[in-house]
């Protein structure tokens, strides 16, 4: 049943550009990007229980690595792949440095990574263009064709992330993450090498985000530090995972879709105060669905509350 549903969803998404207009394809590309961000954050935040705020750092690294490589004439596919790899290496090194911190301290340290990187990119203007931003060479294909290219590319990265998440969830690795999330001291005592496992979780939360960042850069053709090291890129995935269900395989995707839908509806109807309305909605949702949509007890809701 589940397999059929996934198959139908994949076929529908593959066929989407042939039926939808440019707006729909753009929206679907954003949906794929959000799914990548949410699924990635779930490795470290949901499964291993470390509240990372570094998503924007990985996204920005990916975007700039992709942009710089492409500006130097590297083929776009290779540049995207390299961007993921660099984000992974960066996360592995930084992870060793900050993953001994717990709770709020880790959250702040990971947030600082975003701020520091933005400043680094801002000041090294000879490579990155600094505050002037960077132009990425436009592919010489039609608007529709490039729209499809970026949509399918994001789609492939999202599928890769989902496949990795599913594999991790059912493997020894994911079991180790859950042990750490629930009781790190006990996990250590049971033989879980928590430093190694946390570093892997942190790196997994970076690699696909880096790729998505690079694809995003090519897609919008122009990036600047406040755009790709945007704190919203850090916070949105957390909200999505909270909406969908922490530590699950499909929760982050459900959350990403729900979040995007909310964002679009609110943005259209409350143009001037959309941030406030969106914020309020998120607070309400988290209050009433504390474990996420996947854990909502639908049957009990329709039967009426037990006392």
């Amino acid at each position, binding site marked *: 049943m589940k397999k059929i549903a996934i198959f139908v969803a994949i076929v529908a998404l593959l066929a989407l550009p042939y039926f939808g207009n440019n707006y729909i394809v753009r929206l679907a590309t954003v949906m794929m990007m959000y799914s990548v961000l949410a699924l990635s954050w779930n490795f470290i935040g949901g499964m291993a229980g470390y509240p990372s705020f570094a998503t924007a750092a990985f996204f920005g690294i990916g975007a700039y690595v992709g942009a710089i490589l492409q500006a130097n004439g590297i083929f776009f596919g290779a540049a995207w792949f390299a961007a993921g790899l660099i984000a992974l290496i960066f996360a592995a090194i930084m992870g060793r440095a900050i993953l001994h911190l717990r709770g709020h301290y880790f959250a702040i340290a990971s947030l600082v990574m975003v701020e520091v990187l933005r400043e680094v990119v801002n000041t090294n203007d000879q490579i990155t263009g600094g505050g002037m931003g960077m132009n990425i060479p436009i592919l010489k294909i039609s608007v529709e064709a490039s729209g499809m290219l970026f949509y399918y590319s994001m789609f492939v990265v999202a599928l890769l992330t989902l496949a990795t998440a599913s594999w991790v969830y*059912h*493997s*020894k690795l994911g*079991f*180790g993450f*859950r*042990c750490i999330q*629930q*009781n790190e*001291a*006990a*996990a*250590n*005592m*049971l*033989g*879980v*090498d*928590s430093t190694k496992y946390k570093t892997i979780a942190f790196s997994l939360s970076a690699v696909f985000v880096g790729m998505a960042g690079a694809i995003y850069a090519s897609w919008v053709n122009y990036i600047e530090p406040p755009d790709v090291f945007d704190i919203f890129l850090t916070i949105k995935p957390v909200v999505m995972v909270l909406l969908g269900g922490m530590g699950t395989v499909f929760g982050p995707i459900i959350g990403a879709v729900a979040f995007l839908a909310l964002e679009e509806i609110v943005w259209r109807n409350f143009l001037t105060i959309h941030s406030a309305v969106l914020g309020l909605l998120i607070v309400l949702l988290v209050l009433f669905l504390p474990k996420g949509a996947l854990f909502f007890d639908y049957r009990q809701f329709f039967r009426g509350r037990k006392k």
Partner: protein
Amino acid sequence: MKLSRVSRQFGGLRAVDDVNLEIEPGEIVGLIGPNGAGKTTLINVITGVHPANSGEIELDGQRITKMKPHEVANIGCSRTFQIVQPFPNMTVLENVSAGALFAAGAKNIRESREQAMEHLEFVGLADEAEKSATALPLAGRKRLELAKSLAMKPRLLMLDEVNAGLNSTEIDGALKLIQAISDRGITLILIEHLMKVVMSMSSRIVVLHHGKLIANGTPAEVIEDQSVIEAYLGRRFAEKMAKEKNGQMT
């Protein structure tokens, strides 16, 4: 296992002070002492949670002084916590299979679950396997802790007050279990406040006071040791024991 001149300091406090101790394979060693004597700290030092500041610790000739907790766990040295530490959002079976998977080298999750089931049967929790770990009563959680550490296939198992908070029926059950574990050839270190339990179970008793090892001998020797009476047992206990002994003689 061999500890030579092991010390651990927290600021100005020497929680474990120059401890020398040798434990032979298969022994049951009772570790007693007043609250704050450094019993749990000694276990934390051995398992690498709070590494020793000085001294050496060896397990079967292998130096484990500087090892991290997960490394110590992987060479067959496991412990239970005084305050039970289950993974709250996992079932009882999953809790135990974590030990089999990460420390005992089970090949995959399925194999670790099979091994875990055997250990649950051994401690008498097989019927509870699919329950949430937090649904168990205290006695059950203590058994779960035991099953978890057994799943790690330890050579040396340190039990930190497994009987605290249990009623006398539950204690009898726990003692049978501990004996059965020892019969498997696992070396045991028993931290315990119930003198009756220590006296009957241990082949040897070690007494800590202010981090120092003040006595080390058979149960009979230790309860007659003046410094142990001063530090821990109290005069009344000593008199009672002496009376019982005289009573047996006459």
